[in-house]
């Protein structure tokens, strides 16, 4: 009998490398992320619409915003908590959203890694900074001009 040349594997099962999935991700991270997007989204609707309404619609709108305005809001723990929640939720929600987008479009593992590193770093900085600002904020900083400060500040 003629010697057979190399015998090829059947084509079924020969999948272009791009499409093979490497290992499976254990755990529920993607599920929790998905759920978080929805829950945070719902809460953010209230927080952001409230925020926009108060800042842009009430009174003189955007013109009313100045240091005094902000300081006035943050003197009230209610707005402190509000803005803090908004900061955290929006940042986490947005970061996770951008993470998804990076996963979708960055095709090299290296690019993906770097983009995500930058993203997480930026997020961490912003969240920490924002949190510090809200909590360590002094509505009546010692040597500022009085007319810039909210009216409840004691005269220097």
């Amino acid at each position, binding site marked *: 009998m003629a010697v057979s040349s190399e015998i090829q594997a059947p084509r079924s099962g020969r999948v*272009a490398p791009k499409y093979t999935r490497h290992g499976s991700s254990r755990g529920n991270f993607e599920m929790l992320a998905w759920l978080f997007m*929805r829950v945070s*989204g*719902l809460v*953010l*609707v209230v927080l*952001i*619409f409230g925020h*926009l309404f108060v800042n*842009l*619609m009430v009174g*003189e*709108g*955007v*013109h*009313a*915003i*100045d*240091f*005094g305005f*902000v*300081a006035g809001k943050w003197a009230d723990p209610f707005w402190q908590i509000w803005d803090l929640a908004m*900061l955290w939720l*929006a*940042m986490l929600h*947005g*970061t996770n*959203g*951008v993470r998804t*987008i990076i996963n979708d479009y960055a095709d090299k593992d290296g690019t993906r890694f770097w983009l995500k590193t930058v993203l997480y770093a*930026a997020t961490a900085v*912003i969240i920490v*900074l*924002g949190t*510090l*600002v809200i909590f*360590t*904020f002094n509505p009546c*900083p010692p040597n*500022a*001009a009085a007319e*810039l*400060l909210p009216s409840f500040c004691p005269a220097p």
Partner: protein
Amino acid sequence: MSKTPAGTLYRGREGMWSWVGHRVTGVAIFFFLLVHVLDTALVRVSPEAYNVVIATYKNPFMALLEAGLVAAIVFHAFNGLRVILVDFWKKGPKYQAQLLWGVVGLWVLVMVPFLIRHLTLAFTGGH
């Protein structure tokens, strides 16, 4: 194997375009948020610094940008609610296109009064 020829753009319908919109607005808002936290953080530096930066928000050009941002947020928010309905409401997938038209309707409903007020404020210049 071959490289896939690029070909024409896929002609999606409501579902696809709303997703494109959601994605674009999401990223836009995210980047704005980064900047927004940074500028707000200036309140820690000094009232003067904050006010200087905030003042730039008050020129008409920025007002337009701001209007765009609000438009993006409002769309993203309403469409986000639509997505949530599609996920959790039994009839959501069936009515997804109608829901999108609802989103667009609501968006117009919110944006018209907002723009009127916001732009009059911006261009008549308060203070």
